[in-house]
């Protein structure tokens, strides 16, 4: 303990004397000689985006949603795909551990219930907020109508509609989406050139996702031809989905609820209501008939003048 104090004092003294002119001796460390210059660079905090996303799904997932997950894996080069998670383990604690184990900073968990409804969890670990979405309107990349194609691993351009800045919960979602769906700059698996663009826009309180390939006529890699901006076309690559936010939690996979969507109705409820609507069909019919009869009896028709015109 004493030694340490002395050392640090000496260090302070050394730095004080620095501007006296003589070039410094490189500091001796265990690993070798370390120049002062290096210290300065790391001090200025070059921002390194070390985002890593873990992508998993629950068991008993539908084929369409599984393909959606595979598509998401292919468009995010900074993700790690993991095995299917047992349904009991999707309650939070085990998933957190899994994410820690894999060394990831966020997670996209595709949870499929009843093989019909897909819920997407977007979570920032270890103690970041998490959001649960209901996913609708899924179109995967394999559809032949989505004809575009782009480089696998190229960094996307993210576009958000301006209504993301209207409310705090949208702002939070925007930040999360930007961090999860944006590929880090010098990631190992990322490729150069930017040739596709993601679109996130809020319509009817749902977040719609689209992915387009940018095709602009050009001859050189670092600048466009004159007037090429007007000839730029976008071809849809896919996938497509629509997210309906259900709840935002303060912790990862749980925690205090920060936001609850008032307009959200669970798909189970919708199905139940539809069934109820159809349930009373027969009873309603019988009632309607009875009502008609009562009405007829209470308001008798006047005898028709021409009733026995054609009588034999």
């Amino acid at each position, binding site marked *: 303990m004493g030694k340490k104090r002395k050392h640090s004092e000496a260090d302070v003294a050394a730095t004080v004397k620095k501007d006296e002119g003589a070039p410094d001796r490189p500091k001796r460390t265990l690993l070798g000689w370390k120049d002062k210059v290096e210290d300065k660079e790391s001090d200025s*905090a070059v921002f390194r985006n070390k985002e890593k996303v873990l992508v998993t799904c629950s068991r008993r997932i539908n084929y369409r949603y599984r393909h959606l997950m595979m598509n998401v894996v292919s468009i995010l080069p900074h993700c790690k795909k993991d095995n299917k998670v047992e349904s009991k383990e999707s309650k939070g604690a085990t998933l957190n551990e899994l994410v820690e184990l894999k060394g990831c900073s966020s997670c996209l968990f595709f949870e499929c219930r009843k093989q019909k409804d897909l819920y997407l969890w977007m979570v920032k670990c270890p103690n970041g907020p998490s959001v649960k979405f209901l996913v609708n309107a899924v179109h995967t990349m394999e559809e032949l109508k989505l004809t575009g194609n782009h480089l696998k691993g190229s960094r996307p*351009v*993210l576009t958000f*509609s301006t209504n993301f800045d209207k409310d705090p919960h949208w*702002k939070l979602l925007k930040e999360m989406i930007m961090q999860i769906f944006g590929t880090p700059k010098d990631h190992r698996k990322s490729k150069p*050139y930017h040739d596709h663009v993601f679109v996130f*826009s809020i319509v009817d309180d749902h977040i719609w996702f689209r992915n387009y390939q940018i095709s602009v006529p050009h001859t050189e890699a670092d600048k466009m031809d004159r007037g090429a901006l007007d000839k730029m076309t976008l071809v849809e690559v896919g996938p497509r989905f629509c997210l309906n936010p259900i709840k935002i939690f303060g912790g990862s996979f749980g925690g205090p609820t920060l936001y609850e969507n008032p307009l959200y109705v669970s798909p189970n409820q919708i199905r139940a209501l539809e069934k109820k609507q159809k349930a009373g069909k027969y009873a309603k019919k019988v009632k309607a008939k009875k009502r008609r009869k009562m009405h007829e009896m209470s308001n008798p028709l006047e005898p028709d003048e021409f009733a026995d015109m054609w009588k034999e």
Partner: protein
Amino acid sequence: MNNVAVEDLDEDHLGSGSEPESESEDEDVKLMEPSTNSIYNRDGLPDKLGDISWIENEEWIHKLSLDVDREQEVDVNDDLARELSFYTQALEGTRQALMKFQSTWLPFLRPSHYYAEMVKSDAHMQKVKGRLLSEKRKIEEAEERRKAREAKKIAKEVQAQKLKERAKQKKEEIESVKKWRKQRQQSGFGGGDKDGEIGLSFEDGKSFEKSNKKRQGVAPGDRSGGKANQNWGKGKKGAGKKRKSRDFKNSKFGFGGRKGLKKQNTADSTNSLRGFNNNNFSGSKRGK
């Protein structure tokens, strides 16, 4: 009917007051929002946002995100308008992004010789191409069929018109000959100068106008009317079929057809050795 439906639902109501009420209208289920139930932690949200967000004025090249304004409200159910709004948002965003990229002097557009793994496999893109081509072909075929139909209609009309004209012409000519004969009779087969006064319609010189149809030069002794060698140069396959057409038969046998299989030879057919050389090896008829 609808009134009854609503009444029934109210009677069977579950009694969960805080749950959203549902009013069913035909197939859609319309829901009202619970006014007081939903949690909205307006203070906690920005705190969390501060927790996770990166350093404030980080370079744009890390974020690569843009905000695009959407001018008009889009109806969710109108597919075309919705997709169009997404497309315009993307277009506007990419324009801004490309301007920014250009100012960084870094390569951002993929050169055409850059081959790397794409997000969709080549086999898949072949399928896409096949589908696009087949669609194009279908459209083209439909177009062609429609055009052919139209052309056929028009051609038929033109044909009918032509036939009518020809019949009219023929009639007129016959009428004019009759008139001429009558006039001649009436004038009592008079002298030559009187004939010259009567305007004879068929001597106008117009009736010898050539028709547009190409007709090959016919040799005087040719009984087939020039149609025997018509397709000789064109092709051997078509020649057989063409020879049986109505025009050919008319020219060869005259109006009225074959007339009993007599006199089939034309100048060319007498001179041709069609059936002789092939039967060299078919064996002699008599042993001699």
